[in-house]
């Protein structure tokens, strides 16, 4: 395990990261696609696109649209599947000294179990459960919207997987606290919050008295969701005692400090990577400078002051 030497080194109850800034699932690929822009090994970690047992083709039709304060995506979890990930991507990641967390997604508990077994065998250090996928058994309901389903899911995964287990919470619920508590009780090492908000957009084009409509329903992300994310982290931090990874609309160092103040121990950058492909590394550097300039001992002291 790495010796903590850098002032940004972050210990998430056992998961040691170079710094608390990661990139969010679905926005950074599987591998090191962003090396055209930055030195990816400078990041705290990259979280892979959700990986399922078998490859998935994803949704047909329009998959992304811009909104005034962000974007909506309905990618439909297109991914190469775990086998291809292990053969094509994992070795590259390992060879490059890039910290990574594998985001996994299933449609049944059995799929999650199988995925976590594979991750355990392949010594994947940390996984993040994407529980915003529809639970095939219970119809259209997502695992992450029902505390009992979620408890069962996380508990089953916990039996198989000994590494660092993160559960990613969806904000599309009546009480994110209850869901977070279920994850904690089932043995999660940390939660990340939030996944995208449910949202839709209809773009209209009037042609000869008839409207052409482009409707997209999916996950809303970007700076417009930050108040919801800060609210979720704030409420979770009052009830949980495992670390919280804050996600949602982060674009600036100020945003990161706000998440720390709300109780996050680390953060993930999502949509902003699309807007500024070099943002994640920039924020790592800015955070370091901020700590030095303002005379804090290290990231831990900064966080302590932000929470005081």
């Amino acid at each position, binding site marked *: 395990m790495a010796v903590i030497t850098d002032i940004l080194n972050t210990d998430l109850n056992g998961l040691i990261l170079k710094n608390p800034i990661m990139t969010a699932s679905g926005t950074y690929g599987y591998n090191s696609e962003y090396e055209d822009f930055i030195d990816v090994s400078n990041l705290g970690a990259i979280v892979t696109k959700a990986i399922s047992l078998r490859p998935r083709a994803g949704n047909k039709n329009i998959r992304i649209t811009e909104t005034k304060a962000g974007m909506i995506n309905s990618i439909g979890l297109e991914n190469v599947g775990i086998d291809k990930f292990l053969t094509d991507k994992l070795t590259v990641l390992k060879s490059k000294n890039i910290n990574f967390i594998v985001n996994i997604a299933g449609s049944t508990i059995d799929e999650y179990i199988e995925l976590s077994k594979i991750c355990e065998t392949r010594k994947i250090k940390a996984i993040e459960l994407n529980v915003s996928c529809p639970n095939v058994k219970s119809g259209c309901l997502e695992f992450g919207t029902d505390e009992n389903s979620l408890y069962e899911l996380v508990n089953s995964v916990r039996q198989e997987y000994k590494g660092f287990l993160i559960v990613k919470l969806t904000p599309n619920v009546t009480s994110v606290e209850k869901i977070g508590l279920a994850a904690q009780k089932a043995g999660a090492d940390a939660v990340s919050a939030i996944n995208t908000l449910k949202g839709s957009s209809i773009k209209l084009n009037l042609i000869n008295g008839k409207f052409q409509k482009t409707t997209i329903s999916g996950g809303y992300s970007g700076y417009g969701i930050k108040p919801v994310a800060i609210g979720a982290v704030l409420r979770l931090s009052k009830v949980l005692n495992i670390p919280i990874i804050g996600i949602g609309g982060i674009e600036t160092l100020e945003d990161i400090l706000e998440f720390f103040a709300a109780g996050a121990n680390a953060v993930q950058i999502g949509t902003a990577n*699309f807007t500024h492909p070099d943002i994640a590394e920039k924020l790592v550097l800015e955070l370091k400078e901020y700590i030095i300039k303002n005379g804090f001992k290290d990231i831990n002291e900064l966080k302590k002051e932000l929470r005081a």
Partner: protein
Amino acid sequence: MTLTLTKKIHKAKVYNIEKVSVSSYLIETDLGFPVDILPGQFISIYCDGLTLRRPFSVFSNSKNIIGILFKERGKGTNYIKSLRKGDFIDIAGPFGNGFDIKESKSLLVGAGIGIAPMSFLKNTLDKMNIENMLISGFLNKSEIPSCVNLDKIYTDDGSIGEKGSVLNYLGQIIQDYNPEIIYACGPSVVLKTVADIGKTFDIKTQIAMEKVMACGIGVCRGCVINIMKDGKVANATVCKDGPVFDGSEVIWL
């Protein structure tokens, strides 16, 4: 002998910007160093306050100056239009595969602002001494950018060149000109027609697709289309696997 951008994001300087037709503008940006770019590759521009960068085919590339020919659409292009000489512009790229240039008699088909990469391609073919003809359709005369060299023009209203859609003439042109390969860029109806006609006449086609993009580098899977690959339907990203595709491979929705 140009260098390649190592970090594909750059604050460039606006070297020149001018209106080149009733609805389009040419902006030239100075990167400070030369970059290798293939015709058909694109760059993506950060537009003040907008979440998604906007992709644009490269129109010209010489020394340190990359040129973009763009049509005003909404907020993004309105922002780019508002830039002035000396302003900074945030450019990422070049991205995508570009045209796979063949040493064969080439027909280049543009339509509307799709002329941008075709014009770049023509200049490249000319330099390589590859025989080619660039034809393009426009709404009317005033839509034709002053900075392009066309071999044949078609306008919907006949205000210049032949009257009617370039598509109506395509069959005849192919028989007259007898190209070995067709390259095309424009609205999807044009691309589909070119792809179909290529199949009919058994001519290779390369078409430059468009799709709304988020990442521009194959990561977000937002710009996926379906193609036939090894006899199977497969996903391909317009941003990374494209934007140029073999016309015979693309599956149209």
